[in-house]
């Protein structure tokens, strides 16, 4: 009796109703909660047929009848999610579980539980719809991204040609008619050629930027020590000229894509070499540490530093902090680094103060 009481209480808490159809007396019984779900009064006298009538859809009515027949004839139980319209006209989702009891191979009663699952069901439907919408959006985004990359590629490729014509014939003008031009005339040519050259570099950078993200190679185990070695060999000239010192050891082996990562190190190291203080030779420290699920890499220098208010801005494409006469470049390097690192599942940021050097930090997921 105590056990029955406990069961009733817990059913009440979980809002699980019960019902029973006695086939010997042909009487139907609903528990209080079942009646509450149907929104009928406590004096409501249920019958088998009235129970069926609550179901909203014809096919649900048919399904529950069939399930009932199967339970009576073959002792098969059911567990279904169906829609009802309550006595007060409200739409609800219910979960109906039923099973039959047999005495001497004859079904004597069918009974089961009844639960209001409207909230869960609506959440589920909403989630499904949201997922569908998200899927559509993701597809649209993928298409527009691909189009954008294609556009950048075609634009930069086709822009090269007329640009080459401008600089070619300007240079030919200088080659052949130099003696007929005065200093001013030669300066005009110089500005035109210089402009064409810079535009060409911007186009090349744009092209490269549009290519990032197309990772056709497979992820590999990359020894970062070796990767940095390679980068330093490429930059040997700049390192010697600046009399720079590059310190790194015990960098890890990481499962990643080597060529985009090489690009990042190359960009960061060449920035450190470029933005060094005039009076002291550059010192660059490259280190790595493992924290939780990420590798943290840093490239730190003793250069001119960056005013911290520009910490975010420097990662924007074509954003520059210096006039081209001070430091050359198109302002794409760090934007490229950011795109690469984010593609690899990491983040990149800078810790720096003006005149106090810069420390670029980026993360790579370990797995």
């Amino acid at each position: 009796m105590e056990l029955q009481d406990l069961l009733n209480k817990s059913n009440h808490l979980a809002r699980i109703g019960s019902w029973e159809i006695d086939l010997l007396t042909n009487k139907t019984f609903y528990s209080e909660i079942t009646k509450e779900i149907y929104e009928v009064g406590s004096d409501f006298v249920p019958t088998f047929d009235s129970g069926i009538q609550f179901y909203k859809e014809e096919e649900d009515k048919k399904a529950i009848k069939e399930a009932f027949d199967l339970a009576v004839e073959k002792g098969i139980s059911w567990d279904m999610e169906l829609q009802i319209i309550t006595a007060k006209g409200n739409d609800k989702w219910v979960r109906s579980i039923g099973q039959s009891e047999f005495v001497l191979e004859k079904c004597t009663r069918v009974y089961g539980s009844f639960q209001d699952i409207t909230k869960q069901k609506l959440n589920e439907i909403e989630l499904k719809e949201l997922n569908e919408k998200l899927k559509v959006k993701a597809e649209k985004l993928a298409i527009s991204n691909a189009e954008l990359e294609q556009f950048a590629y075609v634009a930069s490729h086709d822009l090269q040609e007329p640009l080459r014509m401008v600089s070619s014939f300007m240079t030919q003008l200088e080659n052949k008619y130099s003696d007929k031009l005065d200093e001013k005339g030669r300066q005009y040519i110089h500005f035109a050629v210089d402009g064409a050259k810079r535009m060409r570099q911007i186009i090349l950078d744009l092209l490269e930027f549009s290519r990032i993200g197309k990772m056709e190679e497979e992820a590999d185990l990359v020894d970062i020590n070796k990767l940095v070695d390679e980068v330093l060999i490429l930059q040997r000239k700049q390192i010697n000229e600046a009399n720079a010192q590059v310190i790194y050891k015990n960098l890890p082996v990481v499962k990643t894509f080597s060529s985009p990562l090489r690009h990042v190190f190359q960009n960061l190291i060449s920035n450190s070499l470029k933005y060094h203080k005039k009076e002291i030779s550059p010192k660059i420290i490259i280190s790595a540490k493992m924290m939780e699920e990420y590798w943290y890499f840093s490239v730190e220098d003793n250069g001119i530093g960056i005013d911290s208010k520009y910490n975010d801005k420097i990662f924007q494409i074509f954003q520059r902090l210096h006039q081209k006469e001070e430091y050359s470049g198109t302002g794409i390097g760090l934007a490229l680094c950011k795109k690469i690192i984010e593609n690899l599942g990491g983040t990149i940021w800078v810790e720096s103060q003006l005149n106090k050097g810069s420390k670029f930090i980026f993360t790579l997921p370990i797995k």
Partner: protein
Amino acid sequence: MEPIQILLIEDNEGDIFLTREAFDEGRICNTIQVVRDGQEGIDFLKNILLDKNLNLPDLILLDVNLPKMNGHEVLLEIKKSDDLKHIPVIMLTTSSSEVDILKSYQNHANCYISKPVDVNDFMNAIQSIEEFWMSIVKLPKHK
């Protein structure tokens, strides 16, 4: 010495001009004929094959990005023709794409040159072509 005949298949007027200029400044006597799209190039060659009074070019300079028929298609046509495949074809193009380079050599291009951006380098490249293909290399005599 017979003047060397060059066929330039190129649609960019600026490049046609520069290429002519570079060859004109060269030491070797030559004549340049220019066609401005791929289809015209093939028609030009087929026409020569039909007319016994005309001579095939000794060298073909072929751009990749061409109207109507692109350079790859033209190259394919030339190299599958028994009457034309002995003519050296030099791909001369702005493209430095690996795909274009590989495809050209797979289709038996005789060499592939990316047009140098700097005009002085461009002129030098053309003169190197002249130097190599017209005085160092032995070319077959046409039938």
